[in-house]
């Protein structure tokens, strides 16, 4: 505090100082809300899913059917469906997205680069319910009429996987392209100067230096596929019995919750909330992994 300040000025200084404190503390309160959010999400799902978890124990994860009429609830069909659909989606989306990203950064004519890049980003914003509607109205009937032996009903795990792939392609492409663009032009030019072909530059210069970021992007896409609800619910077939098939009908955690929740109460509702808890824990681990990898990229990338 200034010694030669008049009492009025000192009061003003103190007032401003109080405002400073207030501003910092209130914004910190809002920031802490993020942590509170995470804690309450976990807490509320544990509390409300506990009755089912306590009743079924580990059997909840191995029971092969979800039979509300018998009060038997098993997560196995949903877990299996979630893993299979996500695996199919990632297996298709990763090569395609990498191809598009390489095309956009290395081969695309300069005039097309920005419009195509923007289109990809805009498509990443199309809501998932649109993909689901397209799947049930266009893709499922198409598969049913052209491959009736594989897709007798048109819907199923593979159909859902295909829709998910189409949905996460723009997503993975956008991230991969962004990290590939962080490679300094100097490195790229040096490799070209040594006589490398475009593929050799991509394979030996760009890929090694952005590996973490690309893996992070792919895992982020996987996280999206694991938790996706609306695109999957329409086309997965909603078979509540465990069926070890790739093309047949099944269900996923998110689809099961969305389908059953409106009519559920009591033990079934608790079982669905326990499923939600499981989904949250799985996606949290996957997304945390992706973030660790992407953050490693950010620290290195020149801003």
């Amino acid at each position, binding site marked *: 505090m200034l010694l030669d300040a008049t009492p009025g000025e000192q009061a003003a200084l103190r007032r401003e100082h109080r405002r400073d404190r207030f501003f910092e503390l209130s914004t910190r309160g809002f920031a802490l809300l993020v942590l509170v959010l995470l804690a309450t999400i976990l807490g509320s799902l544990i509390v409300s899913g506990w009755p089912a978890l306590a009743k079924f124990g580990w059997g909840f994860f191995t029971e092969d059917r979800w039979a509300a009429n018998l009060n038997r609830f098993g997560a196995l069909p949903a877990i299996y469906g979630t893993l299979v659909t996500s695996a199919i989606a990632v297996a298709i989306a990763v090569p395609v997205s990498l191809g598009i990203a390489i095309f956009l950064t290395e081969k695309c004519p300069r005039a097309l680069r920005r419009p195509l890049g923007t289109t990809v980003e805009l498509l990443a914003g*199309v809501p998932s319910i649109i993909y689901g509607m397209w799947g049930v*109205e266009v893709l499922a009937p198409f598969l049913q009429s052209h491959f009736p032996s594989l897709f007798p009903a048109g819907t199923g795990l593979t159909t859902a996987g295909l829709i998910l792939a189409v949905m996460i392609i723009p997503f993975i492409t956008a991230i991969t392209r962004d990290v590939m663009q962080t490679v300094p032009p100097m490195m790229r030019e040096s490799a070209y100067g040594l006589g490398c072909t475009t593929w050799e530059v991509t394979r030996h210069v760009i890929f090694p230096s952005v590996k973490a970021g690309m893996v992070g992007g792919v895992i982020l896409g996987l996280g999206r596929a694991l938790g996706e609800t609306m695109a999957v619910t329409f086309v997965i077939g909603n078979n509540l019995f465990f069926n070890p098939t790739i093309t047949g009908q099944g269900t996923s955690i998110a689809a099961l919750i969305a389908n059953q929740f409106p009519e559920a109460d009591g033990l079934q509702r608790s079982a669905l909330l326990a499923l939600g808890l499981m989904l949250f824990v799985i996606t949290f681990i996957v997304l945390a992994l992706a973030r660790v990898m992407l953050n490693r990229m950010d620290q290195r990338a020149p801003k």
Partner: protein
Amino acid sequence: MSTHTSTHLTPSNPVYRRRRMLNRLVMLFCVSAAAFGILWLLLILFSLVTKGITALDVTVFTERTRMTGGGLGNAILGSLIMTSLATVAGTIVGVAAGTWLAEYGGQSRLANLTRFINDVLLSAPSIIVGLYIYAIVVLPTGHFSGWAGVAALSVLIIPVVIRATEDMLRLVPNTLREAASALGAHRWWVVCKVCYGGARAGITTGILLGCARISGETAPLIFTSLNTNQWNFFDLGSEMPNLPMTLYQNMTINSFIPRQVELAWAGALILTVAILVLNILARVIAERKKG
């Protein structure tokens, strides 16, 4: 030496030919991947536009949803109300939290933890947020309500706004802050007048992108606001009609009525166009700032 070099580079050199072939093959794959990806997405947009436009007319906007057809007016209104309230709430919380992270948090352990959790919540499945609000709002109050829907959408938009605010405030050069402080401005005044001024366009872009994201969210609304076929102007205490849920119900439980499916496509077109407009607006604001 010079002859040696030239044999290396002649097109007949097998190593050179192999490298060139491999390069062509991979580039061919990349071009076809791009064509393949864009083809699928064009197919989806094509169905959306052709199926949507045929069902679109004025009554879609003015009539409420009915079993026998009607329109989507109440659903559009409900979605507008919930999305805008959630955007306002999310903006207040998100900008404040982002400000703390950028201006005060620094690299402290708490700030880094908050940042990390926020990044994870940013891409957490939206259905989980729906279940969460169901457990903490709908179960205690005993009924579905518009407020629960607003709460779920706010939880979804907050991480987006936090991230945008922090990133944009970090772009404001430190010399500006120092200049303002040197003139005797207090910290809160520096943040409010100098930093927000510089970051306004970027933060607006982030809010618009977040708003675009929550407008299409369906899964969280199943457990929170539910849906109704009545007009609901401002009674957020009861069930709130909304566009995404109407699309979902029209395509599932009501899909045996052809008019409902048509309406669903009209709604899907309206929703997608609205989201694209928000996205493009966000980009235009970001671009103008750069220019």
